[in-house]
């Protein structure tokens, strides 16, 4: 048991820190409009890629650095420390699609797509959920009929982040409607410029449009785009989800510590409305204890993350315990943002809050999705209960 980093890791950290300091773009160049954001993210990802900082733990053959998962975590820590902007529009490609292709893709698929993903050339989106298949993903109904060398897809997907700007989609379709639910599904790479697709943005409760609905009307996708075998897509999807529950949120976990730091600063500066003397929030006993609890919990989160990475380093696989961390993380994130609302008081009603690095009100609204998206907290608890603890279904 050891808390120290190896000399190589320390050197890696120093190098990463220096490079980020010298090269990170300012987050405010980024813009709000999705296409503009994607353009910014692509340029930034390309810069990291060119300098050898993309895909820290991706194999070198796909343009990655071939380093360890621990170095990946160190990179995220330095990334957060430098307040470098996350290339969020590239999330699905970098954290889902790419790792899935590495695990299950053909050589052609890997060599064609992985460098494009890693270099930021393409935006990927997800096409898993459907209006009738959310938590119950295996209930998906979008059909694909095999017609010669093509799949012909008809149906609808939902909650597709950045569907309107993506070039590719990781798409789950039902290729055998007669088979048992989990047996007739295929995982397909869908080019977003295929004919017969219609994309409609969905406005969230935070007021922004990040998600889309995607409609498929006899969309032809080459059969060569199927990842893994036809009808074996559930296994491939489980691989995708194991990244989602294992390592995809590592950088978010790391960044939560920063959010808590920023919250402490906010509490240090914000006069509390419920205080008769308008003392700053940090002087209020109740706010201060809740803050202290959050700082303690975010430190535990870091220890949990290190422990999970240590475990993965031994086994070589994302550990099932990822769901424990994900659940704890998502609820902690909501507690942190809720505390921000109590510090800001009635200012939040007019969204009239100091804008620094965080727009607190927007962030508070946004993290309502943290216990819904990528597996609701109920699904996470089922997974923990059944797969980790072995309780019966």
């Amino acid at each position, binding site marked *: 048991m050891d808390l120290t980093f190896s000399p190589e890791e320390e050197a890696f950290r120093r190098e990463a820190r220096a490079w980020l300091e010298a090269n990170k773009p300012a987050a405010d160049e980024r813009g709000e409009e999705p296409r503009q954001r994607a353009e910014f993210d692509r340029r930034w990802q390309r810069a990291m890629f060119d300098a050898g900082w993309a895909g820290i733990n991706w194999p070198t053959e796909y343009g990655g650095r071939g380093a360890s998962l621990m170095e990946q975590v160190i990179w995220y820590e330095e990334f957060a420390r430098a307040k470098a902007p996350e290339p969020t529009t590239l999330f699905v490609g970098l954290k889902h699609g790419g790792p899935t292709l590495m695990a299950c893709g053909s050589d052609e698929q890997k060599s064609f797509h992985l460098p494009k993903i890693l270099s930021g050339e393409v935006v990927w989106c997800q096409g898993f959920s459907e209006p009738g298949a959310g938590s119950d993903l295996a209930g998906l109904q979008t059909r694909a009929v095999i017609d010669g060398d093509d799949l012909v897809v008809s149906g609808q997907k939902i909650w597709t982040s950045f569907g309107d700007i993506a070039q590719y989609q990781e798409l789950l379709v039902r290729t055998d409607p007669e088979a048992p639910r989990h047996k007739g599904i295929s995982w397909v790479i869908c080019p977003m410029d295929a004919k017969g697709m219609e994309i409609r943005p969905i406005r*969230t409760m935070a007021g922004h449009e990040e998600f889309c609905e995607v409609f498929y009307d006899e969309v032809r996708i080459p059969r060569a785009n199927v990842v893994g075998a036809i009808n074996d897509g559930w296994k491939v999807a489980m691989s995708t989800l194991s990244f989602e529950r294992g390592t995809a949120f590592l950088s978010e976990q790391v960044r939560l510590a920063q959010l808590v730091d920023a919250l402490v600063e906010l509490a240090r500066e914000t006069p509390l409305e419920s205080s008769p003397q308008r003392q700053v929030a940090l002087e209020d006993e109740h706010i201060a204890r809740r803050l202290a609890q959050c700082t303690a919990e975010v430190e535990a989160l870091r220890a949990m993350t290190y422990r999970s990475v240590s475990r993965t380093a031994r086994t070589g696989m994302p550990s099932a315990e990822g769901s424990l961390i994900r659940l704890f993380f998502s609820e902690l994130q909501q507690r942190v943002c809720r505390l921000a609302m109590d510090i800001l008081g009635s200012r939040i009603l007019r969204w009239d809050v100091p804008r620094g690095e965080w727009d607190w009100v927007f962030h508070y609204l946004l993290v309502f999705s943290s216990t819904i998206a990528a597996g609701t907290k109920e699904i996470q608890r089922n997974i923990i209960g059944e797969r980790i603890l072995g309780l019966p279904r």
Partner: protein
Amino acid sequence: MDLMQSQEQDAIQETVRSFLGKQLSLEKTRRWAEGDAAEGLDDVWREAGSLGFFALALEETAGGSGFSLTEEMILFNELGRSLAPGPWLGSVLAARVLGGAERAAVVDGSLPCALVTIRDADRFEVEGGRVRAQLSQVADAASARALLVYDAADWYLVRRDASWEIASQRSLDPTRVLSSLTCDSECAVVARGESARSLALTATILSCAEAVGGIERTVEMSVEYGKVREQFGQPIGSFQAVKHRCADMAVRAEVARSATIYATIALRDGVANAAHHVAVAKLLCADAYLQNGADNIQNHGGMGFTWECDAHLYMKRAHGFDHAFGPRATQLEALVAELRA
């Protein structure tokens, strides 16, 4: 001792609900929130006036229906249930404290009065029957013909004039847009001392009544969705994770409603410790609304996170309610002070 509604009160509830369904449905409120100002509030206000909604608690000799605060509670339950916009609370309170022609105008719906409480950042300088004011969070400013202002001591009436400058702001709750307002206008004190304090308690408990309507609606929404939304081949309401959360929401709703009814009657009847009961109701309604508002979003899953689903509107309204007339912390401190006395 009777904490249930009478048949007459049920009828009032029915009248209000039917009026709101026709005139201020949530769909209509949403169109307004999106900036479609084609349909003004004027007609709605006059019809509400003709139905006597602003004068439920006034004597018949004062143009009222001779009911009381409990019937106003029912009105606000319904307003809260449908998230009805408009300066309801200010108008109902103004009808109590104004006299003569002004009261008659409030009662018949031609003088909508927006309620404003003075905040830290506000300026409100009264001198010689005039006020120079700079207000940062005024709800329903656009449709108001007057402001009913509470500066935590006295209540004032400020009639609209040419000096008013209103700028609407990006607000958390789209169904209750907050504006900044500056003015240099005539201003009259309308309540002081004991009657000012009593009016503040009335305002607080009617806010609670409004919250109770919203809290109960969150339970209904979650239950309705839990019955129809299916996953894994069964309605999600059959899963204990959802079912038990709905049960807890129902408990909170019953807590909030019971505490509010109790405090309302206590205030109506001038019971000695009515202020205490109002603080209890305000605290427990805020607890219930904030938690039910969030739980209702979770119960709706991905849909709950969309703008299209009504769930977020109730959660946002809950925050507005919490900050009206003292947030949770302030109510708790009031109760702490009583314990230590």
